[in-house]
C-alpha cells in the first residue's frame, strides 16, 4: 500500500511532465544513440518475425531484414488451412467475454467492498485478497477434474471459467472507487436511484481510466494464456491461438516461414492495439502495476 501511495501521482507525471531540458551536449547525444540502438535491438525479434513471414522459403536463411521479394503467400497458405482462422476467432471470443466479466464483477465487488458497510466485509476482502497468493498452477489439477466431472472439457466455458473474476482486478477497482466521493453516492440515493443504478450510472463513469487499464490487462492476459487452454482443450477446433500455434510449430517442423507467419498472426493484433492506444496503455500499465 505504501508503495502505491508514494507513486500514485507519478503515473500522470510519467506522461505529462517532461524531463528538464538539458543542452544537447556530447554526453546527451551518446546517451540517446545508445538507447536508440538498444531500442532497435529490443524490437529486432518482432521485426525478424514479420520479415520472415513475408519471405519465400528459399530466402528464409538469409539474415537480411528486408525481404528481397516480399510475398503474402505464407499468410494465404496459413489462413487457407482454416485452423488459424478458427483459433483466432476462439481467442477473440474468449478474451472478450472474460474481459467483460472481469470489468463487471471486479468493479461490482470492488465497489461493494469500498462503499458499503456490512457484517462480513472485512473477511470477504481478506479472503479475496488471499487468493492472490494461490498460483494458477496449483489449481489446474482440481479445475481439470471439475471440468471432467461436469463435461466442461473442450468447451469455451471450460477455457473461460477460471478467469471470470480476479482478485487483482477487484483490488485495483476497490482502490479506484476510494477516489469517488461518498457525497456523490449519497446525493444519488436522495434522488431515488437504487444501489445498482448508483453503481452503474454514478460510480462506474468516474473510474473509466481504471476500467480501461483492467480491460487491457485482462484481455492481454487471456489472449496470451497458454497452460490452462492447453490442458482443457482436446480437439483442434477448440484451441486458442497460443495452443494452436504451439502444435502448429511442432507440425510445421522446419518450415520456419510458416511458423513465423503463425506467430505474427497471434502477435500483430496486440501490437496494432498498442500502437493506436500507446499513451493510454502505458498509463494503464503503470496504474495497474502499482496498485495491483
Amino acid at each position, binding site marked *: 500500500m505504501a508503495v502505491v501511495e508514494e507513486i500514485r501521482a507519478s503515473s500522470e507525471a510519467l506522461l505529462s511532465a517532461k524531463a528538464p531540458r538539458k543542452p544537447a551536449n556530447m554526453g546527451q547525444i551518446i546517451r540517446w544513440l545508445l538507447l536508440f540502438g538498444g531500442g532497435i535491438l529490443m524490437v529486432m525479434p518482432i521485426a525478424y518475425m514479420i520479415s520472415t513471414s513475408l519471405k519465400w522459403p528459399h530466402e528464409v536463411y538469409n539474415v537480411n531484414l528486408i525481404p528481397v521479394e516480399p510475398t503474402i503467400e505464407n499468410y494465404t497458405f496459413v489462413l487457407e488451412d482454416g485452423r488459424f482462422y478458427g483459433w483466432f476467432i476462439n481467442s477473440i471470443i474468449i478474451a472478450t467475454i472474460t474481459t467483460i466479466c472481469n470489468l463487471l464483477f471486479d468493479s461490482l465487488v470492488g465497489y461493494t467492498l469500498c462503499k458499503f458497510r456490512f457484517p462480513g466485509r472485512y473477511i470477504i476482502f481478506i479472503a479475496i485478497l488471499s487468493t492472490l497468493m494461490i498460483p494458477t498452477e496449483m489449481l489446474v489439477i*482440481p479445475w481439470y477434474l471439475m471440468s471432467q466431472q461436469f463435461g466442461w472439457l473442450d468447451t469455451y466455458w471450460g477455457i473461460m471459467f477460471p478467469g471470470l473474476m480476479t482478485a487483482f482486478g477487484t483490488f485495483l477497482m476497490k482502490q479506484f472507487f476510494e477516489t469517488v466521493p461518498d457525497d456523490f453516492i449519497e446525493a444519488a440515493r436522495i434522488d431515488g436511484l437504487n444501489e445498482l443504478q448508483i453503481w452503474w450510472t454514478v460510480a462506474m463513469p468516474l473510474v473509466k481510466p481504471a476500467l480501461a487499464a483492467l480491460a487491457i490487462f485482462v484481455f492481454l492476459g487471456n489472449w496470451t494464456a497458454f497452460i490452462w487452454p492447453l490442458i482443457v482443450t482436446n480437439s483442434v477446433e477448440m484451441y486458442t491461438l497460443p495452443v494452436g500455434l504451439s502444435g502448429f510449430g511442432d507440425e510445421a517442423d522446419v518450415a520456419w516461414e510458416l511458423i513465423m507467419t503463425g506467430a505474427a498472426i497471434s502477435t500483430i493484433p496486440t501490437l496494432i492495439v498498442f500502437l493506436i492506444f500507446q499513451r493510454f496503455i502505458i498509463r494503464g500499465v503503470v496504474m495497474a502495476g502499482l496498485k495491483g
Partner: protein
Amino acid sequence: MYRNLSIKQKQIVWAWAFLALPVLFYGVIRFYPTGNAILISFQDWNLLGERNWSGLENYIKLWNDPVFWKVFKNTFLYLLLGTPISLVISFVIAYHLDQLRFMHGFLRMLYFLPFMTSAVAMAWVWRWFYQPVPIGLFNNFLASLGIPQIEFLNSTTNALPSVLAPAVWAGLGFQVIIFMAGLRAIPRSYYEAARIDGVSTWTVLSEITLPLLKPTIVFIVVFSSIGFLRIFDHVFNMTTNNPGGPLNATKPLVLMIYDTAFTGYDMGYAAAQTVVLFVILLVVSLIQLRILRDR
C-alpha cells in the same frame, strides 16, 4: 418487506446481493480447488483407478526423486539469473531514458513493445534464432563473422540461459515503465539541493535515487521473481520435441507438474508438486515483503 428496512439494513441486503455470485465463484473456483489440491497430494491416484490415501508417500517420493532436485535447481536458476539481470538492465535503461527528451515517447515504445507479445509466439521466434547453421539467425551471424558456432538449445549448459533470454526480454518493457514512474516520483528538490552542494552524479545515484526507489525495486523484484518461478510457456515451446530437455536441463517446476499430471496422469504426485510450488512462492513473497516493511 424491503420497504420496512432501515437504510442500514437495506445496504446490507444490497451488499450481499452484489456479492452472492462472486462469493460463490471464489468459493468454488478458488478455495475449494486449493483445498482439493492439498487433499489429492496425500492420495495415490492415476485418474482412472482408485483414489487411495497414501499419507506422505508423494512427498517422500518427491524428496527421493533426483529429477525433482534437478528441477528445483533449474527453477531457482531461472529466478536467480532472471531477476537480477532484468532488474539491472531495466534500471539502466529507465535511468537514462528518464533524462532524455528527444523522441522520448518513441524510445519508450521500442522498449515496451515486446511486453505486448505472446510468449508462445516469441518462444518460437527465438527458437528459430537459436537453430544451428544454416537455419538460425544467431549462428548465421556468427558464421558470417567467422566465429565458431554456439550450441544454444541442444547444450545442457547453454539451454537454460537461452530459454531465459526471451523471458527477460519480454518483461523488460514493463519494468522500465515502472522504474520510470518511480524515478518521476522522486521530488526534484532533492536533486536541486544535491546540485547546489556540488555532489557527484554517482553520489546522487547511490544516496538519493536508489534509496528512494526502494519501494519500486522491491515491487519489481517480487513481481519478476514470481514470474520466473512460474516460467512455463517459453520452456515448453522452445523444447516441444523433448519438453524440459536436453536431459531436464531446462525443466522448471511447472513443466514437471504438467508432465506428471497430464502426460503421466499421476495426479497425487503432481498435486504434491503444486503444493511445493505454492510453498516456494509463499516463502519467497513473504521474505520480500519483510524486506519492504523494514525500509
